């Protein structure tokens, strides 16, 4: 498949349409199992509150995975990623109900580099807070 977006079709300022990803307690339990990160702040309200958190929070790496999907879904091929980095600035708080929380992700091409590479700056928000900062994906386009 390789990347389906062509380098020549992309400009600085090209926007990746916003996507909203849901996250419920069950998703965190599944992610804990799949990733091997069983820190109780991601599934146990008693422990989360005892360390000063408002409630159970999503794994930062779960949020990073959802934000990265915006880019990999855009280019088609996740193997086109050259570099992907984020700073975790606020937690995604996940209440114990059927709706859970939402992570809204948007992106914009902020730089074109040599070798068909572009830098996509990502924004991820949840509950009114910016949950990632300095979130950048470098991707090699077709």
């Amino acid at each position, binding site marked *: *498949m*390789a990347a389906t977006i062509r380098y020549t079709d992309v400009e600085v300022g090209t926007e990746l349409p916003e996507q909203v*990803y849901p996250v419920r307690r069950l*998703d965190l339990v*599944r*992610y804990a*199992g*799949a*990733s*091997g*990160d069983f820190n109780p702040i991601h599934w146990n309200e008693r422990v989360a509150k005892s360390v000063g958190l408002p409630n159970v929070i999503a794994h*930062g*790496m*779960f949020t*990073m*995975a*959802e934000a*990265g*999907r915006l880019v*990999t*879904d855009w280019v088609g*091929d*996740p*193997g086109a*990623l*050259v*570099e*992907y*980095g*984020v*700073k*975790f600035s606020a937690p995604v708080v996940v209440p114990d109900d059927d709706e859970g929380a939402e992570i809204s992700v948007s992106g914009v091409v902020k730089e074109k580099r040599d070798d068909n590479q572009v830098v996509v700056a990502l924004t991820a928000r949840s509950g009114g807070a910016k949950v990632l900062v*300095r979130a950048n994906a470098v991707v090699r386009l077709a």
Partner: protein
Amino acid sequence: MAINRDFVGREYRAAQPYDVTRGKIREFAGAIQDSNALYTDIEAAKAAGYPDVIAPPTFPIILGMDAAAQAAVDPELGLDFSRVVHGQQTFRYSRPLRAGDVVDTVTRIAEIKTLGATEMVTLESEISTVEGEHVVTSVNMLVVRGEAAQDQK
């Protein structure tokens, strides 16, 4: 106890190589609800030029976390894992991990610094096949809350 600065540059090697499998990739992709066919459909992966299904970009955190845990249990380092939160994460890819890869992970303590009451430990994990091909570098910055403040008491 503050984190031991003498440990900058110290390396930890994973006890044994990690086998990347189709089943584990499918489980991880399911957990992040990512339905990209390249994670689960061997024919789709081959059509895209890969020898087997590939792993999602954040999959290598499994190896990076394992390395962090290894450093955390080193009593000489003095890292209290119960105070640790994940501050930053970066991956630099030579190519995606894929099913059939057998990889070694070597983790180096790249930096330890203090900011007020907080200490930050940066771990850099080189993930390579047992044949020696670099696949991905995972840079994992851990924030350790309150350690320095306690020391000043």
